[in-house]
């Protein structure tokens, strides 16, 4: 079976700094992720997980190696096209919420659509739909600042899926939450994966979260040391 992977890392290297101070955060990482998969990237703090995610999400360029998106070499994507690809294909959940505190929840959620140039009425409709999906429709008019931590994380997830991306990148999505709220957020993400077939790439310390994913990629000192596939359920 030769399916094209939705995302493929080919010998990715990323070094910071020059000369004596140079530091290799990624030292030749290769793997493939297929449409609809849930992949956990695990490893100790400082091992290079976030760096890897940034490179995969085309926010950072690798020092060498390539990232392929549905078989296309992304090194050829530049400027406007690259921005468009990122806007259309990816949804982001970061280590911090990164919400604009004084803007409304709805405005925060529709940010990717605003950037894409979607007309206001359509933005509203799609934003409300995403919020409804996360049971936050009643908070649409509230200021983002006035929400609880769990609610904020759900807003962030709503923002990540409002543009109907093919891949959601989540960097420690539950890192800031207590275990119960964390579990709820996890459930939402996996439910999305099951229902819409969205590909999940989750960076996490959390073993139980990693265990729920189809696959675990273990990173140590910038290298992929282990790739375990969960027994097909």
């Amino acid at each position, binding site marked *: 079976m030769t399916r094209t992977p939705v995302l493929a890392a080919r010998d990715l290297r990323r070094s910071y700094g020059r000369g004596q101070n140079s530091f290799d955060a990624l030292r030749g990482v290769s793997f493939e992720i297929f449409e609809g998969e849930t992949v956990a990237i695990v490893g100790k703090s400082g091992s290079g997980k976030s760096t890897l995610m*940034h490179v995969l999400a085309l*926010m950072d360029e690798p020092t060498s190696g390539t990232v392929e998106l549905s078989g296309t070499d992304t090194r050829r994507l530049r400027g406007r096209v690259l921005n468009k690809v990122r806007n259309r294909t990816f949804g982001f959940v970061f280590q911090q919420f990164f919400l604009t505190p004084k803007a409304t929840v709805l405005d925060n959620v529709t940010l990717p659509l*605003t950037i*894409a140039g979607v007309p206001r009425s359509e933005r509203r409709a799609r934003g409300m739909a995403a919020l409804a999906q996360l049971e936050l429709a009643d908070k649409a008019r509230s200021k983002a600042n006035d929400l609880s931590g769990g609610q904020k994380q759900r807003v962030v997830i709503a923002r990540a899926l409002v543009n109907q991306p093919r891949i959601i990148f989540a960097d420690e999505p539950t890192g800031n939450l207590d275990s119960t709220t964390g579990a709820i957020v996890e459930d939402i993400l996996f439910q999305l994966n099951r229902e819409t077939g969205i590909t999940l790439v989750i960076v996490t310390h959390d073993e139980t979260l990693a265990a729920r994913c189809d696959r675990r990629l273990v990173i140590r000192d910038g290298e992929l040391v282990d790739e375990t596939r969960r027994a097909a359920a």
Partner: protein
Amino acid sequence: MKTTDLIGTAVSNTFRSKTRTLLTVLAIFVGAFTLTLTSGLGTGINAYIDDTLAGIGASDIMTVTKNADTATDPTSTEPEKYDPDAVQSGVGPATTTVTALTPDDIDELATIDGVLEVTPVISVTPDYIETESSDPYVVSIAGVMEGQSAQLAAGSMIDDGDDLELLLPTSYVDVLGFSSAEDAVGATVTIAITDNEREQHLIDATIVGVADETLASPAGAGAVANDALTDALFDAQSTGLTDEEADRYAQATVRFADDATDDEIADLKQNLEDAGYTGTTVEDQLGAFTAVIDGIVFVLNAFAIIALLAAAFGIVNTLLMSVQERTREIGLMKAMGLGSGKVFGLFSLEATFIGFLGSAIGVVLAMLAGTALSSALSGSLLADLPGLTLIAFDPASIAVIILAVMAIAFLAGTLPAARAARADPVSSLRYE
């Protein structure tokens, strides 16, 4: 991101940090307010000067006098030789003696290079003016030159017809027994003039308008007569003189090409000088005055612009802080695919909007303050200068001020905006 969204976002970002925006807007406000007032002062005074110029005469006209043959040294105390053609010109202490122009001189002037037309200025010296119900009052009467106008308080301008018409200065309305300027229009006045044989002639004329006494109305504080009336008065005055004796003029007006350059005008003056005449343009008469006003307005404007420059640094500072604060937001938007150009646009638009707020408020308040101030002053301090609006505003210069302030604000915003545009999304997101 669509342009409308970009502008909307920039505007709402402006109000995110209200105190900071307010302070920056205030700084710009001070600059724009001052600039509007000072330029309004320039506009007001220059408009007044322009009106005055129109009163004095068209810009293609020169007043010509004949130089005295023997240049008399004004500081000399030696007895002066008699010159039968000498005429006193000017009034008050600044009198100068010039030689009268004869018809021959007029003909000679017409042949000088650059002169299109020569008109002798006829001067009449009436004894008094009166109405049936009033006492006689001393008056001076002058004609109008082509292109001259007067600021009318009532009625209309005199015309070139055969009727004897005059414009009455406002100060004569009361004393001649009229209840108002409107009341005077259409009334008949009698002018008395004495000829060379000491015989007094009475001539009736119709008041067609009442003129404000501006600094330089055609006749100063006197009445303005149309050609028909001037001729009638002149004929009366010249009764008993031979033609040769009558046709003597203190000065003549010379018309030159209305598109003449400064150099050509200078050449013409030199030609006149060589032929023994002195030419004075309207600009010469008012030149020093305008130069002083322009100088003052320039200095005031310079102060206002310095204030605006200081405010521009305020904008740089405000936006740099804002870029710093929003580092992660910028990183996030870039990660989500917002291009650098749009990020630049977002911040420079924010700067431009701050500039717009400051300048719009400044301009509006300055116009209110300026209008109030000039109407207060024209009723008191400047009451003797009717027609002067000390601070006047014209839409073009107001628009220029607003646009210029917005341009300055935009320029000030480019530095922070470029910094935001350059920001790398990954390091912005890592920023604590």
